[in-house]
């Protein structure tokens, strides 16, 4: 049975208590949760705090001009994509044009025809759903279902910025499938795709809920580990590396797949480090892991030249496996 608390939130910003009471009754059979604000200030605060799926906005309120509220909603990155239906007793073309130019999705004149308002609200909610779907698609890698590079860039920049504001541990692991080209050349591209999908699935099952796994590009994956010190991140990275070695691949069960990992973590203060140079340091460690024989984790503290290489002593190297194949 659908849970009413999962219904999309619709925020009504209107100074008239009559309109609030009326819409609460008239929209109660819609699959929505109606949240209300009787003035612009409360409305803007609610919209920013928990962005609703659609906003019904009255244009003429005593404390402010509704156009100003619309402008504020459209200028704020947390609220600018929320569809806004303007409710107004003002029905001049000029007002409608201004509302649409400021980013309103729709304009309904008061007193409203309720069947029409319901239909327009449903259309706005569909638009909101499509916008979310589009935003999700733009951030998802089509082959693996993990976040794509754009998503990684955004999340990584956010995490580093958070870490700068409130010092806390943070680690980044760049993981690259060893000798991936050989998989494609030997078993064909479908087998290569299967490996990438398998690595993505393994990353999702081995990392923790707080971690963010993304496909950085090609056969390279990025793993952001928030609130995780370098030694703890190393444990996760090792677990990931070992888990991949255990995977039996349906198309080539005799061929083991391994990955090399470059890890850089910080236990708190990140100084002048930026998201970009943190990533460069992780790439350098990844390069070292490749150069030193692959199937290993090379880790270091941020801005430190001291590196550790970690690799299970009994782990057969990708090189030896490839040679055997």
């Amino acid at each position, binding site marked *: 049975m659908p849970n009413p608390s999962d219904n999309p939130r619709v925020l009504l910003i209107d*100074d*008239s208590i*009559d*309109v609030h*009471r*009326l819409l609460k*009754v*008239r929209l109660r059979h819609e699959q929505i949760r109606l949240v209300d604000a009787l003035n612009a200030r409360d409305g803007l605060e609610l919209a920013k705090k928990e962005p609703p799926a659609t906003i019904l906005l*009255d244009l*003429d309120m*005593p404390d402010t001009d509704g156009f100003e509220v619309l402008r504020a909603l459209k200028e704020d990155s947390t609220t600018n994509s929320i569809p806004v239906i303007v409710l107004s*007793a003002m029905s001049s073309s000029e007002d409608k044009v201004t509302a649409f130019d400021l980013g309103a999705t729709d304009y309904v004149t*008061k*007193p*409203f025809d*309720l069947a029409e308002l319901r239909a327009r609200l449903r259309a706005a909610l569909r638009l909101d759903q499509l916008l979310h779907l589009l935003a999700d698609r733009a951030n998802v890698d089509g082959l693996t279902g993990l976040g794509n590079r754009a998503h990684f860039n955004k999340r990584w920049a956010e995490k580093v910025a958070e870490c700068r504001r409130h010092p806390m541990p943070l680690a980044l692991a760049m993981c690259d499938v060893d000798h991936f080209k050989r998989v494609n050349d030997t078993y064909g591209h479908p087998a290569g795709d299967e490996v990438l999908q398998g690595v993505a699935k393994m990353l999702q099952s081995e990392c923790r809920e707080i971690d963010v796994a993304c496909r950085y590009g090609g056969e390279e994956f990025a793993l952001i580990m928030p609130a995780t010190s370098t030694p703890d991140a190393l444990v996760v990275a090792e677990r990931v590396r070992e888990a991949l070695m255990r995977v039996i691949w349906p198309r080539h069960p005799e061929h083991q797949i391994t990955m090399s990992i470059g890890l850089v973590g910080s236990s708190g203060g990140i100084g002048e480090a930026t998201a970009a140079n943190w990533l460069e340091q992780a790439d350098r460690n990844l390069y070292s892991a490749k150069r030193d024989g692959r199937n290993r984790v090379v880790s270091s503290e941020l801005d430190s030249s001291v590196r550790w290489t970690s690799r299970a002593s009994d782990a057969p190297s990708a090189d030896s496996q490839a040679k055997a194949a």
Partner: protein
Amino acid sequence: MPSQARDGRNTDAAIHSTFANDPDMRELIELFVSELPGRIDEVRIAASSQDAESLRRLMHMLRGSCGGYGFAELGRLAGRIEEALGCCAIQTPDGEGALDNVRAEVHSLIALCARVTAAAPD
């Protein structure tokens, strides 16, 4: 004996909501009608104290809500008063001239409100 307007309408007849028979709306209409005398008092005060802006806001509220509660005629009249006050207030910042122009319509609105009932028509 009920009074008759010049056009023959019964000016004492009760005004019912067009939604009076809608069970979803019954309670809301009762609440709306019970609060109407208070609002009309505010209209009287604004009119007698020459407070055009308060009067315009009160008309704006009535214009936006009356139709939704099934009293479209009241809403339309409030809308006409609001518009008249809005455009005249620009010419006379004190609003005095504006109030003179709408005084008759404000009286009609007060008279109409007195006839509003939450009861369903027989």
